[in-house]
């Protein structure tokens, strides 16, 4: 049978349409199977089971009570032996403040009320439900605990800093220098060591641990305890409807940082 070019093209076209239409790859794209491993789309509901510890921060209260944020930071950094290298490039931060417009970059707009502009917001590790740092860590040095805390085992950290690149909140710091060393004037980077908690070594990443060592003995996180009298921070189990965070989240309008990324932060802000 002789085929001319026109017939051949018709046949090829039909075959291509049929092939694409029935291909499993195309269908799996449609049903969303081919999404990046483990990455849930923002807005999809999460299972409400087990404990999921969370924190609510009222930024107005911190604005009213000047110095409270600094006190929270000081108590956190002193009990966890967080070094102060005296230089922003090497800075180690578990708990720190950031301007409103930088904290909620992409969650706000430039016509926002001027009263919020430049307002310091207390920031820490968000202990995400879908933590990108945990996926990035090649040694499982950082992991998600049953209670929702994103914790670290510094023994396993090889200092690759993938987690720092993965974290969209800048909540992780790298020890470029020995935290228990001294500066050029002989002053130690950690003023006073807390003998109840270890320090870290040079070359590991560190971050807020939601005071998991305090929670284990029935205490609140140190920053929340410091802010208790001002009702500026709340802590509890998100899956327990009677917990304080659940009550506050029901009553107040709250936002999280970069909700569109689908990380499901456990730190909520009352604006």
């Amino acid at each position: 049978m002789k085929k001319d070019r026109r017939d051949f093209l018709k046949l090829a076209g039909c075959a291509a349409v049929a092939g694409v239409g029935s291909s499993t790859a195309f269908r799996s794209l449609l049903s969303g199977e081919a999404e990046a491993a483990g990455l849930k789309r923002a807005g999809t509901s999460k299972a409400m089971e087990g404990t999921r510890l969370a924190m609510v921060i009222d930024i107005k209260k911190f604005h009213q009570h000047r110095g409270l944020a600094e006190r929270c930071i000081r108590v956190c950094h002193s009990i966890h032996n967080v070094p102060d290298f005296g230089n922003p490039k090497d800075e180690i931060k578990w708990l720190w403040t950031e301007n409103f417009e930088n904290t909620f970059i992409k969650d706000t707009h430039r016509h926002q009320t001027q009263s919020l502009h430049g307002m310091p917001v207390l920031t820490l590790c968000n202990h995400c439900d879908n933590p990108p740092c945990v996926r990035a860590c090649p040694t499982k040095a950082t992991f998600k605990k049953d209670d929702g805390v994103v914790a670290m085992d510094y023994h396993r950290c090889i200092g690759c800093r993938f987690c720092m690149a993965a974290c969209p909140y800048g909540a992780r710091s790298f020890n470029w220098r020995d935290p228990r060393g001294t500066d050029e004037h002989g002053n130690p980077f950690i003023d006073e060591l807390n003998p109840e908690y270890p320090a870290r070594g040079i070359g590991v990443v560190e971050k807020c641990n939601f005071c998991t060592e305090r929670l284990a003995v029935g205490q609140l996180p140190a920053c929340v305890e410091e802010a208790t009298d001002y009702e500026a921070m709340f802590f509890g189990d998100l899956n327990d409807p009677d917990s304080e965070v659940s009550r506050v989240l029901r009553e107040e309008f709250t936002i999280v940082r970069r909700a569109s990324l689908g990380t499901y932060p456990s730190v909520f802000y009352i604006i």
Partner: protein
Amino acid sequence: MYGTGRIIPALIIFVGLMTFPIWYNGGKAQQPPELVLPTEYDECVRDTQFMRESHMVLLHEWRDDVLRKSGPRSGVTDRGLEYERSLQKGCMSCHYDKQNFCDQCHDYTAVVPDCWACHLEPTKEAI
């Protein structure tokens, strides 16, 4: 043989120097390290033989259990003594004399664990 006068004495000196540690220490038994044990307690979290051989395994088990699996932070010995499952807060609360306990064996066996790169040694006040 060419150069016998120099080679033979040189060989004797060489062999003598190489075997120096053997004949210098010959007949003397190597002294095992002497540990200073805590006086307050007469039992550890496990028996002495297990602790001598496998204390590092136990420490790793504690670490993984407490850190990753939210395991209990304290334990109880067979005789009912409660202890913290922690190097810094548990072990060192009794064995605070690190120089005469940990370091003795570690120096003797030439192992260099890096525990103290992060964990804090008991302070002078504790001793």
